[in-house]
Each structure stands twice: as C-alpha cells, then as structure tokens.
C-alpha cells in the first residue's frame, strides 16, 4: 500500500508551463532529480494541445505569459472539467496576487527565485490533493 502509493507518487506526471526557456530547462531537471516525471510546455495552448493534459497530476504554471496567461489556463481547465492541482510561479513579487490565486483553487504560489524544498513541498501538497 505504502509502496503502491509511493510508486504512484514517483510515477506522477508533473507538467511545467512557462514562456521562459531557462525555467523550462532547469525546473524539469530538478523535478526529475526529485523523482517526478516531467513534461515542459512553452505556453498554455501547447499544454492543452498535448496528450499530457489528462495524465498530469500537478501543473506548475507561470502567471505572466504572452497569449494565454496562467489564470486563463486554470479557468480553461476548470471549464473542461479537469481538476489538475496547480502550483503558480511568478517573477513578480506581488503579495496581493497570492491570496486571490489560492482562493481560486491553486495549491501554492511561489515567487521566483524559490528553493528546491519549497518546490518539493508545493508539488507534494498538490499530489496529496488528488
């Protein structure tokens, strides 16, 4: 049971959506080191078009992106009836944004730069929601 749940955790697919290339390079590597399966997308549209939408157990989502923004994608997923736990990340340290995002169902909101432990806690919290 414990192992099964562990496997389920280890085998969980975490998707990263960020327009910044360095994030798309660095964050998947770290998440893989932490034991997660990772897919990275440069935009919300790309993520929605992929086959990973249904598989994703946790979505790490940048707020400010050209085109569809993070909250836009969140609304779109809700609209499609997909309840994927979301961890928002942003380079704008705007404390006022965080409570409203959490209120709308986000698991966590991390301000860049964030530590690996903060990231792990957030992803674990997201997986526990499921």
């Amino acid at each position, binding site marked *: 049971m414990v192992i099964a749940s562990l496997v389920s955790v280890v085998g969980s697919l975490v998707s990263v959506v960020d327009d*910044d290339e*360095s*994030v798309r*390079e*660095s*964050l998947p*590597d*770290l998440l893989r*080191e*932490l034991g997660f399966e990772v897919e990275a997308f440069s935009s919300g549209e790309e993520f929605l078009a992929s086959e990973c939408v249904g598989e994703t157990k946790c979505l790490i989502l940048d707020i400010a992106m050209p085109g569809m923004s993070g909250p836009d994608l969140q609304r779109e997923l809700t609209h499609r009836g997909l309840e994927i736990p979301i961890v928002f*990340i942003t*380079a*704008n*340290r*705007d404390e006022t944004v965080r409570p409203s995002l959490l209120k709308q169902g986000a698991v966590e909101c991390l*301000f*860049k*730069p*964030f*530590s*690996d432990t903060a990231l792990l806690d957030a992803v674990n919290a997201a997986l526990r929601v499921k």
Partner: protein
Amino acid sequence: METEFGRIETVRSTPWPTRLAAGSAVFIVALGLTVLAGWFSHTLALVQILPQLPPMTRNAAACFLLCGLALLCVALKGPRWPVVVCAGIVGTVSVLTIVEDVFGVDAGIDGLLGPSYITLRPSSPGRLAPVTAICFALASLGLLLAPKTLSKRSALLVGLNGSIIAAAGIATSMAFALGTSDAFGWGDVTRTAPHTTVGLWVLGFGMLATAWHVETETADTPRWLPLSVAIVVATSTVGVWQALVADGYQPFALLPAIVLGGGCLMAPALGLTVYMTQQAHAQAAALRLSEARKAAILDSALDCIVTIDHQGCITEFNLAAERTFGYRRDEVMGKELAGVVIPPSLQDEHRRGLARYLATGEGRVFGKRLEMTAARDDGSEFPVELAITRIPLKGAPSFTGYLRDITERKQSEKELRRSEAFLAEAQRLSATGSFSWRVATDEIMWSEQLYRIFEFDQAVPVTLELVRTRTHPEDILSMYDMIDRARRTGSDFEYEHRLHMPDRSVKYLHMVAHGTRDQDGRVEYIGAVQDVTERRLSEEALGKVRSELAHVARVSSLGAMSASIAHEVNQPLSGIITNASTCLRMLAADPPNVDGARETARRTIRDGNRASDVVTRLRALFSKKNATTEWVDLNEAASEVIALSRSELQRNRVILRSELADDLPPVTGDRVQLQQVILNLLLNALDAMSGVDDRPRQLVIRTERDEGDRARLTVQDAGVGLDPQNVERLFEAFYTTKSGGMGIGLSVSRSIIENHHGRLWAAPNEGPGATFSFSIPYRPEGATSVHSLGAIRASDVATEQLQVMRNQ
C-alpha cells in the same frame, strides 16, 4: 447801452441848428458889412432904408460884423481867439454906450468910426440905441463865456441871452410893423433902425441855434426852451406895450393894458405849455429807448422768451423763439399760447393751471426750473427747460416764459447714463472695479463695483488707510512695497493681493494699473481691479489635484519600474537557484551524476550572465546621451525662469529682486538643464519662505563673474534657513526637509551642475534664510559628454514642473 443809443441818435440828427447858427452868423456879417459900406459910400438907402426911419449906426454895423464872426467861430467850433477878440470889442463898445446913456456922459466912442452925418434925433448921433447896446452886451457876454464845447450851463446862458436878443429884435420889428419906432426907446435917445431889429433877432436865433445844438444831445428840445419862450413873450409884450405908450396911448388904456396883461399871462402859460410838451416828449423818447432796448435784449437772447397775457394770448415772441418753434413772430402774436407751442396732450393742463392762478392766485410754476415738452410748428415735440415769471404790473396779470431746447442735452444725458449703466453692468458681470489714484494728493476714486468688491459703503471716502484695513495682514508689507514703487517710478504695475473681509473670508484681487502724468508731471494711476477669488480658489484646488496626481504618477512609475527591474532580474536568478539546486542533488546522488551536474552548472553560469546583462541594459537605458551643448547666457536663462515663475511668486507673495550682471560672458552647457537647476533653487526658496509672515518674503536672484573664468548664479531667500550640520546632506538623494518633498531636486541639480564641471553649494545667511549658489566655467575643458542617471531623470521631473507652471 445808454451811451450806445445816445451816440446813434446824435449821428442820425440833422445838424440843422449848426447850419442855422452859421447861416445867421453869415447873415449878420453881411448886414454889418453892407451898412458899413453904405456909411462909407454915403449910400443912405443901405444905412437908413427910408429917409424918415432911423439909420443903423456905424458902431451897430461894426458890432454885427464882429458878433457874426464870433458866432461863426462858436457855431463851427472854430478857434477861440477870434471869439474873444470880436466879442470883447463888442462888449466894450456896448457897455460904454450903456454907461454913456445911463450917466449922460460922452465916452468918445460914438464917432469912432467916423461922423454920423444922418441925424434924425437931436441926442448923440452915431450912438447905439440903448436896446441895441443891451443886446450886444448880452451877445458878447454869451459868446465870451461860451467855451469851445458848450456845457449845459453855458448853453443855458447862450440860449437865454439869444432868447432876450431875439425877443428884443422881434418886439422892435413888431413896433415898426405897428407904425412906431419907439419900442424899447425912451426920451430922445437914438432909436433902433428897422434892419438893426432884424439883425438882432437873426443874431438871437443864431445864438439860440448854437445853444440848441448842445442841448439836443440828450433831449429833443433844450431844457431852457420854456424859459426862453416865456422871456421872448414877456420881452416882446413889454416892447410892444412901451411902443404903444410912446405912440401916444395912456399907459393903462385898454389896448396897452390888454397887450401887457395878455402878454404877462401868456408868457408863463406858454412857457409852462412848452415845458409840459417837453416832458411828454422826453417820456415818449425814454419809452422808445426802453422799447428799443427791450427789443434788442429779447432778440439777442439765446433763450426763447414768450410773454402771454391773462387770457393766455401771446404778446411777445422773440427771435430765439422763432428759430426754435419755427413760427414767425407776426404769425403767433395775439394767438393763444396753448394752440401754438404746447403739445395737444398738455394743452388742457396749461389752461386749467392758468385759470386756477387767475381764480386763486395760486401759482405752482413760478420761480422754478421746470422741464416740459413743447411742440414745433410741424407738430414735432421736444423737451424744454422752462422758467415762468409773472410780470409785476398792476391790472390783469401777464406772464413771461423763458424756454430752452434741451433735446441735445437730454440726448447726451441719456447716452451718458446708458454708457455708465453699460460700464457698471460690465464691471458687475466681470467682477471688475476701476479706480484712479493721484499719487501726490492720495485722492482715490472708486467705481461702484470696486466698493462692492471691498464691501464698503459708497458714501465712505476712499483712502489708502481704508484699503489697508481690508488688506490681508500677510499682504500689507508687499502692498506698501508696491505703493512705494508706484510713488517712486510712476510706471505701470500689475499685482495680486488678498483682502481679509469682516466675515473672515478671503478675497483674491488682481490689479492692473497704468500710470499717466499730467502737464505738471504729477502721476495719476488709472487701474482695474478684478475679483479673482473663484478663479484663484479653483486654481489652487486644481494645482493641488495636479500635484497629487504628479506625485501618484511619479510613485507609481517608480513602482512599475522597480517591478519591471525585479522581474527582469528574478527570472535569471530563479534559473540560477534552480540549476544550482539540481546540480547539488545530482552530485549528491550515488553514483553522482557528474554530466548532469556539469550541464546544470553551465546553465547557472549562463543565467548569471543573463542577470548581469539585465543590469547593464538598465544602466544603458538610464544613461541616454540626449543633453545638448550650446552657448548659454545665464542672465537670459534666469530671466526666462523668473518670467515663468511670475505668477507663482505672486501667489506666494514673494518680492523678487533680480541683480543680473551686465558683463557676464556666456557659459557652455545645456540651457534646459541649467534652467531646471535655477527653477529648482527658486521653488525651494519659495517653499522655504511659505511659512514666513513676520518679514517681507524677499528673494534675490543674482548673477556675477566668479574667479577662475566662471559665472556664478545665486538664489538668496529669507526663509527658514539651514541647519549648518546638515548642509551637505541636502544634496543627498532622498534627503528632504520638506513634508511633501521627494528629496531628489537638489541631488539632481548638483549632478547637473557637476556635469557642467561646476559646483553647487548652500550657505546660511547672516540674517534669516539661506543662499544657494552654483558656479560654472565659461568653457568646460574637453567636456562634451554630459552623462548621469540623475541628470536625465531630473530633467524629466523639472520639465514636468515647468509644464505644470506654464499651464497655470
């Protein structure tokens, strides 16, 4: 006027008395010459006329000759000396003859001119008859005493003497006509010759005419005429009576008695009659003169003069009335006034008023200046000014009206009222009052609106003291400063100050005054004062909103910029930290994932560089080189800033004195940036003085040469001053002593000045306030680049301030 008319009368009168006098004189001269010629040529007919008649003596003929010459001289206003000589001889001869007759002596004058070879009577042949002698004595007396220009008194003498002589002549002539030669003759003395009698009355009338001529200058006939008539009648009566008696009548027989009695009654009666006639003539003449005067006065009067009788009919209508009303005098004389000059609507009222006055004696219109409407002959009506008097005579009353056409005056009064109302309304609508101020006497005149603005009663005389009582306490110093300057220079001024009203409200006034000088060089200001309270209050509100907005904009743009910088830096930082964390985990794995760690380390370096690039880009963004270098005249630059700040200075009630050096060479630099520094110093000075109310808010901007080929600009205020310990901190960014300040102005200013290779410093004044100065070289050595983050940001901020002030 009297002499005027008198002179006209004289000129018009025919000089017949003069001609008569001269004619008489010529006649008796001819008579004398003729008889003398008869004597010398023994032509008896010339001497005697008829053999039984008495001859004219040689002496009588000579006396006629001399009297004629003397009379001629008097009548023609000739020289005086022939009169004296001739009349003198005549007088001597006649008086001596009388003496001979009276005392029975022989003076030896009877045969002076030759023997009398005709003897009708036994006594003294050749002697003058007594009546002839008396006549010549009177004649010589009259002629001798008559001055060249006859006075009334001498004329009386000449006239009366003439009357007696004429009367004697007439009486003796009448005696001859009655058949006797004895008129005025007695005993056996010489009788008067008939042609002597004629000569005597001609001489008498000649003298009368001479005297007449003088007397007519004031009256138609001589004053002495009645007396003269009485004398003539009496003399003639006595002569005729005496002739009758000599002819054989008893002295008081019927005929002589009738002649004497009738003559004695006739003489005073005729004299009185003549006197009465004279009086009547004189009165008539006076009346004519008075009428002529009245007519002249009436016709030359500028006002219309119309007189009416008690029935309201016109009895007088002068030339001015003809001109004004358009009627001719003879058209309206006797017509009822109401139908002529009074408009139909007022005719009944006029008739009622006249009837009431006649019935009750109650006159409401006398002795007052009235304004009424009158009508012309064409029916057009016009306003008149009118005064009515009752002519103070007995009997039925009559009235005189003095009228003046006041159409033009009414028109100009109306226009004046209209223009005044127009001005007053314009002043009320624009809340603008006007005033005049004579500087020498401090006489001040205010328009109604200005009284309303100051909320004073219009009866109160305006003085500077009165103005001062309303002036806001904080503005009184600058008001006196303004008054002083106006007194000194007389030049135009523009000024803003506040009023402190009794209800503690504050009014803002904007004043513009133009100085004029009269002929004596005295200054008078004419000015307008506008109540700009509402505008000022809304400007202040607007200014406050604007500055709040500017502050908000500045703060939010700073916030936006820092957020943007943070975002740009956080992105690579995030990458660095994530990669470094991954790297550590890869190295910590068993076995360590060295290749992966190498890859993540490489990415860490890449993101580090990326962060560094961001910072470099930011620096580049802020150090854009858009400053220009040109020749800048600091005086001009300062003057422009002062001009831009004028209203700001006035609003803060700051008295600015600029002392700009004439010989200041231009400096090299960025004109706009230097003006921003000057503006910044000026605004700082204003802020420093905003709480100062106990002394004038004096601000001095001074330019001068500084040592080492530098120009220096100084801004000296009378504000709160500086804490000497913090002087240098003033120039640090974000250090401020002002509640609303950002604290970047002075630091930016200093960096601008330093980019111009100059120096900006501050020092406390010896008195109150502080002095900020900068000094820059005329030619910066090898400096063309003006680069500083502060300079550019400051230029933006200051440009914004300039903009804000322009918009105000």
